[in-house]
């Protein structure tokens, strides 16, 4: 679709890593920003090292600009997700240090009585460091010189890294839920901790369902399969709590942040079903390497992570709690509905392209023809993508304006 003069300078080889980096940045930065806001409120005191927080902000900003410049110039590390040169990986790790210091110095968590969201945030930070460092093991010959080990490192580290940022975001969602409902009990209950530990086990072990066709030892796959199937408990709980969830959603529907949490619930439900299906080896054999895997990734990053991060932003902006935001709230509600409907079509288009590829593979259709036959799904994908972009842009403008208004109100009072 690009004009010829842009094809070289903005080729897919450059635009894809840029897209991936910006998506990851949105997720990380959104989660970090939320933490900086919630930490002093949970601790009931000022943040321990405000200068460190600003250092983190500027450092991350500079590193991101540098990474984008490297990608534009065609300097790559060539690894999935972390496609920038490895030296920037070290800088990213360093930039997180002030957040970790602020987290522990401000909260001084006493884990025995801490609510589940503090466990979730702590686990997210710990595993971000472990998995990010692990993803660079390929720089060592022992890993780089064996494709099976190298591929396993990537799937293992990246799979668990997704789990680590989910822990950060889910922790935030649980905190917001507590604040909206005013009920502290659920986040201290045995059930909440059971699901937290189940989530942690999945973070650590379930990445392996991506490696069924990698020639690693069979026991790696067996363990991953059994752990992946524990997600059935989570799915079962969602279905069990369905009526209650709907009733709660109706009760708090007027709060935009709660509505966003409800949208995320819907996407968790859909993506969990998809995750369980693609974790079954016989199904994975067909779905692996098709757009069905992409649908799972997009459903998770946009349907779940983005909804939860927007819920966090709107909670901070206090939309729905004061009259100056009423009009914005109405518009944001409409745009979010458009976003979710478009996302559903986007998701279905990816599933369609995935099934098309499975069918074409079975019939041994050549790759170019495979792409041609998938064109209708790609068209639907593009059209729904345009709606997603427009709606999300509108939502973000409203969110930023509301944040500015809220800041003014706080300063005035």
């Amino acid at each position: 679709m690009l004009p010829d003069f842009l094809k070289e300078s903005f080729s897919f080889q450059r635009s894809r890593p840029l897209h991936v980096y910006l998506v990851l940045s949105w997720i990380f930065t959104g989660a970090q920003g939320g933490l900086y806001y919630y930490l002093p409120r949970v601790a009931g005191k000022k943040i321990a090292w405000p200068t460190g927080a600003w250092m983190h902000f500027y450092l991350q900003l500079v590193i991101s600009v540098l990474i984008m410049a490297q990608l534009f110039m065609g300097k790559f590390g060539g690894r999935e997700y972390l496609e920038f040169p490895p030296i920037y990986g070290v800088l990213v790790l360093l930039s997180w240090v002030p957040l970790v210091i602020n987290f522990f110095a401000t909260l001084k968590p006493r884990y025995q009585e801490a609510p589940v969201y503090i466990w979730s945030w702590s686990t997210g930070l710990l595993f971000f460091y472990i998995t990010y460092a692990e993803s660079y093991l390929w720089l060592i010959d022992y890993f780089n010189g064996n494709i099976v080990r190298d591929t396993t490192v990537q799937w293992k580290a990246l799979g668990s890294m997704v789990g680590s940022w989910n822990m950060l975001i889910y922790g935030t969602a649980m905190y917001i839920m507590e604040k909206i409902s005013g009920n502290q009990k659920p986040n201290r209950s045995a059930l909440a901790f059971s699901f937290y530990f189940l989530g942690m086990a999945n973070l650590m072990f379930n990445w392996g369902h991506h490696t069924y066709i990698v020639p690693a030892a069979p026991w790696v796959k067996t363990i991953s399969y059994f752990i992946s199937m524990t997600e059935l408990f989570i799915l079962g709980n969602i279905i069990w709590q369905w009526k209650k969830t709907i009733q709660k959603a109706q009760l708090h529907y007027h709060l935009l942040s709660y509505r966003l949490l409800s949208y995320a619930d819907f996407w968790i439900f859909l993506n969990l079903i998809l995750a369980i299906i693609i974790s079954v080896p016989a199904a994975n054999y067909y779905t692996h390497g098709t757009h069905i895997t992409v649908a799972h990734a997009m459903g998770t990053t946009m349907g779940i992570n983005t909804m939860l991060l927007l819920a966090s932003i709107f909670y901070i902006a206090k939309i729905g709690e004061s009259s100056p935001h009423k009009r914005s709230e109405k518009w944001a509600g409409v745009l979010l509905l458009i976003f979710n409907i478009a996302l559903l079509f986007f998701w279905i288009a990816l599933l369609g392209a995935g099934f098309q590829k499975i069918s074409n593979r079975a019939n041994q259709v050549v790759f170019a023809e495979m792409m041609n036959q998938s064109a209708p799904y790609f068209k639907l994908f593009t059209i729904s993508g345009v709606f997603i972009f427009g709606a999300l842009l509108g939502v973000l403008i409203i969110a930023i304006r509301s944040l500015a208004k809220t800041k003014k109100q706080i300063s005035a009072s």
Partner: protein
Amino acid sequence: MLKIYVFSTLFAAYSFYTVLIYLTGTKETAPTNISFDSKAQEGKKIYQQYNCASCHQLYGLGGYLGPELTTDYSNPERGPLLMRAFLENGGQRMPNFHFSKEQIDCIMSYLRYVDATAVSYKNPYRNGY
């Protein structure tokens, strides 16, 4: 206290599992006559430098704009001649990267090595899956 025990147990299991995977779970699968020699190593470097993963997958890692390359080398429908032609001239969607003959040889050696390791890829059910 129970929560701390559960966390510690899970974390210890994860650490042990990680070591076990990297020591015994991911042994080399390529036949002894095909090794990750200096040419294949150079090919891997080029593959990463040019970010081939943005369009092509190896073992499912990478983009979807181009075909998966894991077993392309031994695929009778594609094979080394077609792959070499794409590397030399580009294609409808693939840019011409103006690779030198040496670079193309290295990339081909790397993809030959990857293909040789892909035992379970060619017949996943033989591996129990």
